[in-house]
């Protein structure tokens, strides 16, 4: 802390700036959370009284928990995110180990490619994957009896494949930051104690990386769960939650959107604070 060397006035002004900033930061989430309980059929203010209709309603007002389309989108998002973050984590771990060990001439080149999704705009990744998948799909349809429509045309599997492409980069960076601190002699020690390469991986490297693996899994889940820019080009008849909500916002806005927003805001906030209170980092 450099507190001793700054004036009272500086401290006060920084404090005011920060206070305003955090007010601004939480304002929209706060507004939506309140409106989720508004007893009115419109989206905004005035506040007409408290209701839980937008959560539990099943008659005229269909609440989140009775909105089959919304629940399905939520379910698809969770399914997608679980699958994407698990597969990405697997690839990312292999990548980290590869970049750690390999002596190939192409290593640096491969590394730059592997982090490139972080700076490629998501829209471009989306259209690139769509074009490529379609090309392969057409090729097989035209030249063989194989129909890969289920996997390579817009739909659940293409979303999964597409999201893996960039979620892996994020997972890789998270795992790598811990791998960098790994003491390589631990590995040699295990080898010297007659562990096989696989046993080294299983008993030494993976347990060592475990905290970062969990972190990468969670981060991957959240990135996949909330992705829009890439997914919008890959989605088919099963929209993920953001895609579904986007079409709701555009074409069919009801306060149910406030309610599901509130639920997600609440879940994330609760999780963040639990992590803050009980997490080590």
């Amino acid at each position: 802390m450099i507190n001793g060397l700054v004036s009272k006035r500086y401290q006060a002004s920084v404090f005011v700036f920060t206070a305003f900033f955090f007010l601004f930061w939480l304002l929209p989430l706060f507004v939506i959370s309140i409106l989720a309980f508004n007893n009115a059929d419109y989206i905004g203010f005035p506040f007409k009284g408290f209701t839980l209709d937008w959560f539990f309603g099943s008659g005229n007002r269909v609440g989140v928990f009775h909105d089959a389309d919304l629940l399905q989108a939520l379910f698809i998002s969770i399914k997608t995110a679980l699958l994407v973050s698990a597969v990405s984590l697997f690839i990312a771990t292999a990548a980290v180990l590869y970049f750690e060990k390999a002596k190939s001439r192409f290593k640096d080149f491969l590394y730059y490619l592997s982090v490139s999704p972080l700076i490629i705009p998501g829209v471009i990744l989306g259209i690139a994957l769509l074009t490529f998948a379609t090309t392969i799909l057409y090729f097989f349809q035209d030249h063989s009896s194989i129909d890969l429509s289920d996997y390579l045309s817009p739909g659940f599997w293409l979303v999964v494949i597409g999201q893996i492409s960039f979620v892996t980069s994020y997972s890789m960076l998270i795992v790598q930051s811990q791998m960098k601190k790994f003491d390589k002699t631990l590995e040699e020690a295990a080898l010297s104690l007659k562990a096989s390469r696989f046993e080294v991986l299983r008993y030494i490297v993976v347990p060592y990386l475990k905290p970062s693996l969990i972190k990468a899994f969670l981060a991957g889940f959240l990135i996949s769960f909330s992705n829009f820019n890439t997914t919008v080009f890959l989605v088919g008849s099963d929209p993920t939650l953001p895609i579904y909500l986007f079409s709701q916002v555009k074409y069919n806005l009801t306060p149910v959107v406030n309610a599901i927003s509130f639920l997600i805001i609440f879940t994330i906030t609760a999780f963040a604070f639990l992590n803050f209170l009980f997490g080590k980092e």
Partner: protein
Amino acid sequence: MKRFLSRLLSGMLMVLAFVNVANAQQVLRIITWKGYIPKELQEKFEKETGIKLKITYSNNEEMLAKLRATRGGGFDLAQPSADRILFAAKKYKIYQPMDYTKIEAKNIKPTLLKATKDISGGYAVPYCFGTTGLIVNKKYAPDANDWSDLYNPKYAGHIAYRLKRPLLIGVAFAMGYNPFKLYNNTPEYKKMINNVAQKLIDTKSYVYAYWNSGDQQREFAKSGKVWVETGWDGIGWNLHKENPDIDFIAPKSGALGWIDTFAIPKRSKNVEGAYKFINFMLKPENAAVFVNHERYQSGSNGVEKYVKKEIKADWGRTFDKKNLENIKWYPALPAACAKIEAEALERIKAAASR
């Protein structure tokens, strides 16, 4: 660690199992417009046939895009507008010809069925029809009655529209063109659209906002800030019920008439189910549920028996004989025109509002 790995693995397997379970049941995947399949009808259909509906909401453009990417796969049934089918079916081969023998023709208004067959080139069955015109707040804009009022300085700051092709077509009619006659004359069509676009760019500052959804249409009209906006008849009539000042108006130079249809994608995996669904939806008593809900005109023959009285009155109120004859029905849209329009729309969107 072993436990962690095995837990991870079993988690993944569970996810895969879910995916498979979801695929096991017989499903009909429909891409359609919001509101076209009321919940009541969905449940009824699922109970009657045991086929589960999987509904994706969309619009004409996205419907095409999705089907194009899959070459007519991914969905078992689509509901595009009649004029958007022919070129897509020809160029991208995304629809299969309709087998009209499988349709219960007695349940469909014969003239409408014929018109749909003609416009779509034999790929579609009509579901409903309606018009695009103006939704006007008579309290503030008693004289507004044509597309040209969308750039009438009198209403500056109180105009809203959707930046999509109906706007261009409507304004073209108001400017004295007949865009449908120019469909096959690309250079002329382009000239016309450019003139229309210029008009809209010059008057961009009059616009309060662009709407994207029926909801926004409703909200704008209700707020009292928007006096003249483009809109769909059903929505206008719905608003009229709540606030008599607001109503749907057929523009002097002609309301735009559209027919929304059923068309079966080329790689539909449940063609049988699709026909079943079409016949189900056009049964008068079922079609009436939709009409009572959304206030659009159904293609079903005999639906009137089940439709609420006040809804029946809407159509007559707006469309007297003159207005009815003046409705401009969309003919099949050529691809070249769609491109010209899209570019013009982007130009209008990007233009600074002076």
